[in-house]
């Protein structure tokens, strides 16, 4: 069952090269500061860094101690300090405080700031304003693509979503273009390009400009990946806000998969220690169940466990026990989820709900509401509106564990973004005759129990089928994207039929595991293989957090 690739599925390119490139560059940068040094790492960069270079590699290159960049004075006694940070003003202040404290104490050390994936002028300006521009040396670690799995590349930039879709800050677009440029240098040009969304279009244009400027040798190269599809997250918030019911998505919603691995706390492992598990295609069991609807998983796992227990020795058995334990715990959670799912949502008086929300979570969420409104996730509506049957069917799947705020947001969102019309046009809510057999999915809707085909995935499917946006004018209009839907097909006879069945999908603003599962399913049906590039893995909770205002 589960996830056998079709025999004729095209081979994926080898993305481990990206890791090697990143590692070599980091080592080079560390060597630029010869001698022993302490390394300060920003918390957000720790997990990605861990996937690239472990502590022993760092030690080999004379990194003495590792510190986390946080709001505490550093106690490093090293003569050389190296900072590995995201280009954020907050970090610049941290460094400035440290350097200035040294200056006051009459201490001179060497400081090096390594920005990942790139440095911004604003950061340098802050260093200058703080009077330490001359004291530190700056470098860039162009580490923008982390292969989380054989078919999944993440930029690990969760802030992309808030920066672009809420604040309208376009600074990451250049990073995206650079990353795409890197891919085309390594894996050849992309003969067929499609995209939708303002950010997609800008990224694409900037990327093409980069390609033109460089008289690159990649121009004559054979393409390895035949298609690229760029998609803005704001084309489809609905899918991202839905509770996930495929296994990997569920694990992400419940335990939060971080950088391709998940930490199971003591309550899951039933021991004192927490357990870190890497979740990717190398884990045979996981790769078989990751894309399954959760209702199939338990049966499959117990079957698997029986088989395994018969075959393996006791030591292995321990793992299985843990696994079983985990699954049963997991299912406990699931039942609750299920309960939540079956709750009918009764439209409430929005105002009183909002008041109560502020009363219980604090007034700063007044700003959160304002953020949601700005991003188009929330529109105020007159009280007393009732949800139509179809909306309630979709919103059945929607839940937010943090608070019940989404329900209203969602229903109004549905209104504003013409969701109803689009879903009719693209047949997102398939008519179900009888029971939907989740064991033998018949379409991408299986990732939401057969109730809803993810809009993002449907768009991709439709465009790939047509090799253009032709005939989708109405959908594009409903998405308010007439200017921002593009196709760019190069007549390329060098592209092999193999490569033409490989599709790189770029999610600007994040994608969910459900979308990944749905597209993997689509690929299996059509004989394609999808490769995913996302600014970060996301889900409903993460999206909401990005919108939330938190007291510092």
């Amino acid at each position, binding site marked *: 069952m589960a996830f056998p690739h079709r025999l004729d599925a095209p081979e994926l390119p080898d993305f481990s090269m990206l890791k090697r490139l990143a590692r070599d560059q980091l080592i080079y940068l560390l060597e630029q500061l010869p001698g022993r040094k302490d390394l300060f790492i920003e918390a957000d960069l720790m997990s990605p860094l861990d996937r690239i270079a472990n502590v022993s590699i760092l030690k080999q290159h004379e990194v003495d101690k590792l510190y986390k960049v946080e709001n505490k004075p550093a106690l490093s006694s090293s003569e050389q300090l190296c900072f590995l940070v995201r280009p954020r003003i907050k970090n610049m202040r941290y460094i400035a405080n440290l350097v200035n404290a040294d200056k006051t104490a009459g201490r001179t050390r060497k400081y090096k700031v390594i920005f990942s994936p790139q440095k*911004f002028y604003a950061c340098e*300006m802050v260093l200058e304003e703080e009077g330490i521009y001359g004291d530190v040396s700056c470098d860039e670690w162009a580490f923008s693509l982390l292969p989380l799995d054989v078919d999944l590349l993440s930029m690990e930039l969760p802030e992309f979503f808030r920066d672009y879709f809420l604040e309208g800050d376009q600074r990451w677009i250049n990073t995206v273009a650079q990353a795409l440029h890197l891919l085309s240098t390594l894996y050849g040009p992309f003969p067929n390009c499609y995209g939708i969304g303002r950010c997609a279009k800008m990224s694409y244009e900037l990327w093409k400009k980069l390609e033109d400027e460089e008289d690159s040798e990649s121009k004559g190269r054979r393409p390895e990946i035949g298609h690229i599809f760029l998609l803005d997250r704001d084309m489809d918030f609905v899918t991202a806000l839905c509770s996930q019911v495929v296994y990997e998505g569920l694990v992400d919603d419940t335990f939060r998969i971080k950088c391709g691995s998940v930490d199971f706390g003591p309550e899951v492992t039933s021991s004192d220690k927490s357990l870190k598990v890497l979740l990717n295609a190398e884990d045979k069991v996981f790769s078989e169940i990751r894309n399954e609807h959760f209702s199939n998983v338990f049966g499959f796992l117990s079957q698997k466990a029986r088989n395994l227990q018969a075959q393996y020795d006791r030591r292995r058995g321990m793992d299985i026990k843990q696994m079983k334990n985990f699954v049963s715990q997991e299912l406990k959670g699931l039942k609750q989820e299920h309960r939540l799912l079956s709750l009918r949502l009764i439209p409430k008086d929005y105002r009183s709900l909002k008041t*109560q929300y502020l*009363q*219980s979570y604090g007034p700063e969420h007044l*700003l959160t509401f304002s953020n949601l409104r700005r991003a188009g996730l929330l529109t105020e509506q007159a009280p007393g509106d009732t949800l139509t049957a179809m909306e309630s069917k979709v919103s059945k799947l929607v839940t937010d564990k943090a608070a019940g705020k989404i329900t209203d947001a969602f229903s109004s969102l549905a209104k504003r973004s013409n969701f109803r019309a689009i879903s009719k046009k693209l047949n997102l809510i398939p008519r179900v005759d009888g029971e939907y057999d989740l064991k033998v999915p018949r379409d991408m809707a299986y990732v939401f129990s057969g109730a809803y085909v993810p809009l993002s995935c449907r768009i991709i499917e439709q465009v790939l089928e047509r090799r253009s946006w032709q005939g989708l004018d109405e959908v594009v209009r409903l998405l308010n994207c007439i200017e921002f839907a593009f196709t760019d097909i190069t007549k390329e006879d060098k592209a092999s039929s193999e490569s033409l069945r490989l599709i790189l999908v770029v999610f600007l603003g994040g994608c969910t595991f459900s979308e990944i599962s749905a597209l993997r399913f689509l690929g299996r049906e059509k004989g394609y293989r999808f490769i995913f590039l996302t600014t970060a893995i996301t889900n409903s909770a993460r999206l909401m957090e990005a919108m939330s205002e938190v*007291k510092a």
Partner: protein
Amino acid sequence: MDCYTANWNPLGDSAFYRKYELYSMDWDLKDELRDCLVAAAPYGGPIALLRNPWRKEKAASMRPVLEIYSASGIPLASLLWKSGPVVSLGWSAEEELLCVQEDGAVLVYGLHGDFRRHFSMGNEVLQNRVLDAQIFHTEFGSGVAILTGAHRFTLSANVGDLKLRRMPEVPGLQSAPSCWTTLCHDRVTHILLAVGPELYLLDHATCSTVTPPGLAPGVSSFLQMAVSFTYRHLALFTDTGYIWMGPASLKEKLCEFNCNIRAPPKQMVWCSRPRSKERAVVVAWEKRLMVVGDAPESIQFVLDEDSYLVPELDGVRIFSRSTHEFLHEVPVASEEIFKIASMAPGALLLEAQKEYEKESQKADEYLREIQELGQLTQAVQQCIEAAGHEHRPDMQKSLLRAASFGKCFLDRFPPDSFVHMCQDLRVLNAVRDYHIGIPLTYSQYKQLTIQVLLDRLVLRRLYPLAIQICEYLRLPEVRGVSRILAHWACYKVQQKDVSDEDVARAINQKLGDTPGVSYSDIAARAYGCGRTELAIKLLEYEPRSGEQVPLLLKMKRSKLALSKAIESGDTDLVFTVLLHLKNELNRGDFFMTLRNQPMALSLYRQFCKHQELETLKDLYNQDDNHQELGSFHIRASYAAEERIEGRVAALQTAADAFYKAKNEFAAKATEDQMRLLRLQRRLEDELGGQFLDLSLHDTVTTLILGGHNKRAEQLARDFRIPDKRLWWLKLTSLANLEDWEELEKFSKSKKSPIGYLPFVEICVKQHNKYEAKKYTSRVAPEQKVKALLLVGDVAQAADVAIEHRNEAELSLVLSHCTGATDGATADKIQRARAQAQKK
């Protein structure tokens, strides 16, 4: 060919010197060379002449003319000299003409007589005037050395990076030295000067006396001195008619020659080639030219005309009114091949090839002879090398033909040297052409490199030839054609008589999208010439916005720069422009500019959020964006303000803003928060503990947990917390406290608006089934089964379910019948079901 060696003159036993004509000059000289200041640049460079009216005691009423010619005598520039008296002329390594004035000012002109810049050699020089000056070349660039009227030396080793150095004084020096020169070794410049019979060496700090070893006695004065091209050797001409030659270090003597002429020579220069053992100097008097080396005899030439010597890397150029000649030591390869009765392999090969052309069998004999000695490779190499040293194309051809002929009989002769020589000679012949007038020898060309040669062609505005050479040599476009086209364009923008449109169009037509061409560089040049509009037009062709922006900023087209930066999508670039604009414009205009550029605005806002909160406020104020202003003050109320009064004030401002934004809800919520803050403050004062910054519900909870039920209720009333919510808060707090007694009292205080199932649930959650059971009886009938199941009373749950005759409830209870004790209950349910079905 018989007379090929006719112009060879032996010097001693081992070397020949030959002199051949480069050009017959057809310049129209108005004055004799001897009446002019003359400067000729090395490497076949241009010649500058300035008739020196200041030397003669004539009235300075007539302005002199500065003329610049190519080495072949083609006029390049002619301008009326309007500045002060000039003491000396010289060419820099970049082929710029340095004119040293009497007052120590140095005026720099381009090859075409265009004034470039000027600099001064310092106050001391200005005061004491310039007596004499020399322009010299070092590894740093070109230097100027000056002898002042006070008999002191000032020099700068690199005029590109002017650092003046005043040399130490020569003790007791009363008169000007009879001759002097600059010496460079180990990156230090020295001055060697002769005063009477003494030689002094000046370095940066000291003055020392030096004596040339083995100098013939009786010298009372040195009349002339010469340093070799590479500063390695020195020659001294004494008043006794001796020429002393030795290394520049003066450590030993190479040779000494008595020329029996005591008259001071006009010029003395070294004539030697790199890697040759032969050393010789060329001495010129009015009518006589003498080549002197380590040999008892010298070579003598008669000078028919007033002539001028130009030292080169591998020989000496001699030009006069009518001719331009080159004098050099015959290179080894040529000597071997052409020496009379030479049996060198190259000579035989040349012979063989000639016979072959005559279809004579002798060709085979010669070839066989070479092959028997196994010297064919050497022969070919010799012919190739000798071809390089020939000036006449016919000789080059016959030598190359011989080489090519010999190559046929070799299995594995790498073709590179032959091919490269052909290419190099083609380039050399092209630039040596009379119209171009750069008489480079092969050695000079190799020393100069093709890049520099191209630069020099560009400098002479010989763009088509330069491009042809690039294409012929297949140089990469970026280093070759594109670079030259860019230079051409930079020249083109200076043509002031052509309109902006025409220039821009012409440039774009020629350059197109040639890789490596930077339109912004050309635009920068146009701007440098004061053609801002043209610069903007040219920038339109620049595909890289990043390159457009800095120049636009420089030209004060900041707003255009901003839109270009935004177009580029590079936020860093936008930011650069923003900061520029911020400094350039007043605040109001700056904000107005931002208003029209949403992308820049959001970028700037983001920055302000972190760095300049006040500016952010101003931005919102300007836009009358009350909603955002409100949000801004809300954030300030908990992020920026510490004191409670400040926080309340911030909230008040926020509330006002929300009212203006017609966001009544937010305004009300903000006002509630103000009340809450004040109240929390009071609570802290009266009750102690931490209340500030808790949400309303948390405040209520905290009060209940602290046992202040009255206050909690008062608070709930004040803020109109719905009854249901209050009950929930109370319920959870009391359960958390495990204050079961109070909970029970509370449950009885009035009818619960949330029912009693939550009571059961929360007790079970706290693992207190005993307490939970107390509430089961009060749970509403439709929830009773659930409640009973929660407390584990399956039997009673079954009874209730049966009573309700509810199928769903029955199944639910049944699913809970797991233990052995529940067997009876399960049966009971089954029976009830069966009964129900019967009915």
